[in-house]
């Protein structure tokens, strides 16, 4: 067993363990911290696959942005040490059955499909290549989705501000 495999299994155990803890712990602040470690583990998996740009984006956007936003919203909406009400046993059992059945079915399909690796070609994921293809409007370019997503981000920003703003008109 090489170090390559050992690192993969360590990363998998880290991701899944923290994911399970994030979804089962009863304190909401701890759930946010476990989610943080899960996302760091996923970034580590991207580093393990040698896709450095996506790993960096994952750390910057998820760990630096979304988790901080979630923690701030926890502080704004409830006391962080408070325990959440536990789900009923019935709901836990049926959700667990649904999740395990779905995972079993998908795992069965994956194990029987038989993917063939394509080890000859090498993925060129340099930042230069990514930037060139993203702003290219030829066949392989992604210029149109890039523009659409910039408009989406602008709309989401304005929408978030408008929704969260206190309406002075109704109060007076």
């Amino acid at each position, binding site marked *: 067993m090489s170090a*390559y*495999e050992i690192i*993969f299994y360590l990363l*998998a155990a880290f*991701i*899944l363990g923290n*994911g399970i803890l994030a*979804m*089962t712990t009863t304190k909401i602040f701890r759930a946010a911290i476990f*989610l943080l470690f*899960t996302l760091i583990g*996923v970034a580590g*998996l991207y580093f393990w*696959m*040698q*896709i450095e740009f*996506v790993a960096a*984006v*994952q750390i910057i*956007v*998820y760990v630096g942005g*979304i988790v901080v936003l*979630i923690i701030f*919203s*926890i502080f*704004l*909406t409830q006391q962080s040490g408070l325990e*959440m009400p536990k789900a009923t046993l019935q709901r836990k059992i*049926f*959700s*667990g059955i*649904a*999740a395990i059945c779905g*995972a079993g079915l*998908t*795992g069965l399909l994956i*194990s029987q499909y038989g*993917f063939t*690796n*394509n*080890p000859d*070609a*090498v*993925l*060129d*994921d340099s930042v230069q290549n*990514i930037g060139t*293809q*993203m702003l290219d409007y030829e066949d*392989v370019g*992604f210029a149109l*989705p890039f523009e659409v*997503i910039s408009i*989406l981000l602008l709309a989401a*920003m304005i929408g*978030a*501000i408008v*929704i*969260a703003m*206190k309406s002075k008109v109704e109060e007076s």
Partner: protein
Amino acid sequence: MNEISITHILFLSTALFFIGVYGLLTRRNMITMLMAVELILNSVNINFVAFNKYLYPDNLDGLFFTIFIIAIAAAEAAVAIAIIIHIYRNHHSIDVEDNEEMKY
């Protein structure tokens, strides 16, 4: 080096996806449900990157899908948290069982 194939990575992302589904089904707090959605989106991102790296390494489509999903997830989280804060200001609770005015 090729002992770990794409199948292992797909098993990992499947497990992460269904952990997220379990959390989405059991939790009744809006912020924790949002966390479950983030886990699900992350597992899909792992799939895209793994498919691109191991099966179709001659173009970069999977990476671009991953980057766009991350951007959309950030926008979605911002809007969802704005809605949650607004609901908390009006109802003093972010439990989904307490917010059912639009049900009927």
